């Protein structure tokens, strides 16, 4: 029994998976907040946004934290079922993990469970305590993740160096200048001024400031490197049939998805200036039946400016080789022709580990639910491009989301 919505593409079967609510806590340094406390708060925020209570949830999917493996084990072993009072009622609680792109893969997992009838309502949870963790420990951990111990660890490679290797190649291939790369960070900082949850709200940034900051890993300056943050985000997915039965008129569906895992180790990537975006985008647009210029906004992983510059090219949002200059033009800014990373992204809202991509996804859903608030809501938006990556930028993941009417 399909219902004709506001869009021709929103005809939905009963089991079509939809997003119906989001929750988020401010990102930054919050030493007095606790891991399980934040998870509980953000879960209840997302459920309230969906007009639900914990008892309405049958499956919990966990996006991992990275600050502590003991804390991660709490999630793996279903602690949140007990904390939320649904022990004995919950059908399943488990973790999905692919680093920075986990949010994209958790959506695919949840969508499959709902569409196949294995789950009805799924709560997805994330919390990270990076901002309050020991920085030296986190640097050590991040210098091992996504780096083969046999072949690359002995060189002294670490995460900023990976971002720098991609940036250097991208600048050589495209002729983008240091000012062009810095412009991406400045656009993100403008958006962060409009997001009450952003770590850098209230702190403006100019291209000159970025270029004057110290060189960390040539050609990356300190202000082009992400700041580790505490944060928490959550969202609720259910079937379209259940959403309609509950009177949830605002919902968001998945029009298409695509992905490409292009390498594991950065030394084996054959095209550092392109990564896997073109293939991921092609598959996603083909499934959705619409293209980049049918979307009103995009939320794309941005732990370094270059990751996003490469992505907007592969996603067809601008011409090939023009990604960084496209940001320089102001197209992605507040009030621009194609708003991009409207929460400030990882670089200005805060890098919450695996959750950086989750925060961008949550922002995309929030925009399509028309709940982003008066300051940064993209007026009347109905389609959003979500781009995910992470680790050594081994994968490029695309979700195409659209608002589904009653």
């Amino acid at each position, binding site marked *: 029994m399909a219902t004709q919505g506001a869009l021709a593409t929103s005809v939905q079967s009963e089991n079509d998976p939809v997003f119906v609510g989001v929750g988020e806590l401010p990102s930054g340094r919050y030493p007095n907040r606790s891991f399980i406390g934040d998870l509980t708060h953000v879960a209840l925020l997302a459920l309230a946004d969906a007009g639900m209570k914990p008892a309405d949830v049958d499956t919990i999917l966990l996006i991992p934290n990275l600050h502590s493996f003991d804390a991660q084990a709490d999630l793996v072993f279903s602690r949140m079922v007990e904390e939320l009072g649904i022990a004995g009622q919950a059908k399943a609680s488990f973790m999905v993990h692919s680093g920075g792109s986990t949010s994209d893969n958790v959506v695919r997992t949840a969508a499959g469970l709902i569409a196949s009838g294995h789950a009805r309502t799924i709560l997805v949870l994330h919390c990270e305590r990076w901002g309050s963790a020991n920085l*030296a420990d986190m*640097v*050590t951990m991040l*210098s*091992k993740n996504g780096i*083969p111990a*046999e*072949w*690359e*660890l*002995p*060189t*002294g*490679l*670490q995460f*900023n*160096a990976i971002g*720098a*290797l*991609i940036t*250097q*190649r991208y600048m*050589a*291939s495209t002729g983008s200048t240091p000012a062009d790369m810095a412009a991406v960070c400045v656009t993100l900082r403008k958006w962060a001024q409009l997001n009450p949850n952003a770590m850098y709200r209230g702190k403006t940034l100019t291209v000159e400031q970025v270029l004057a900051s*110290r*060189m*960390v*890993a*040539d*050609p*990356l300056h*300190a202000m082009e490197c992400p700041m580790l943050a505490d944060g928490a985000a959550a969202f609720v997915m259910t079937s379209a049939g259940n959403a309609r039965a509950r009177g949830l008129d605002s919902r968001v569906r998945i029009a298409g998805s695509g992905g490409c895992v292009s390498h594991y*180790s*950065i*030394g*084996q*990537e*054959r095209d*550092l200036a392109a990564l896997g975006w073109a293939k991921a985008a092609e598959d996603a647009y083909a499934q959705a039946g619409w293209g980049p210029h049918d979307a009103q906004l995009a939320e794309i992983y941005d732990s370094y400016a270059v990751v996003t510059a490469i992505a907007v090219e592969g996603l067809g949002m601008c011409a090939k080789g023009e990604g960084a200059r496209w940001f320089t033009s102001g197209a992605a800014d507040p009030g621009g022709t194609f708003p991009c990373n409207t929460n400030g992204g990882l670089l200005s809202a805060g890098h919450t580990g695996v959750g950086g991509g989750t925060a961008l996804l949550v922002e995309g859903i929030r925009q399509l639910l028309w709940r982003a608030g008066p300051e940064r809501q993209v007026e009347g938006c109905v389609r959003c491009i979500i781009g995910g990556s992470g680790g050594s930028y081994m994968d490029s993941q695309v979700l195409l989301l659209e608002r589904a009417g009653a």
Partner: protein
Amino acid sequence: MAVDPIVSAFREALGRGELLVQRCEDCGKLNMYPRHACPFCQSFRLGWAKSEGRGTLISYTVLRFGAPEGFEHELPYALGIVRLDEGVQLLCRLEPDADGGWNHFACDQPVAFVAKPAEEVQRRPCAWFGPAAGTGH
């Protein structure tokens, strides 16, 4: 824990001043990094080819802050991705110039393998590259 034979053979060669690339004895294709089965034909009959040690610098960076544990006293140091003339590629360290800098490197320039003493390879089992003769700028 024993070091995997595909790792120890590669490292022992580095200590002798040789850069090895894994070669499948069935399909003849080269693999980097070395694998446990040939990624092209799935054969387990894997051997080695000695690389000529010449290639192109695909990208590079100089790490100045935030070294991983154990590398703090080596800062700054340079890392590069080199595509060998044989077609396979690897991450390596880059030799500084006489002034201790790396301004003599640029993307797409020809580079050459630099042999290191066995003690250095023992400590840091990775390949080093420098500008190919006559190509520094």
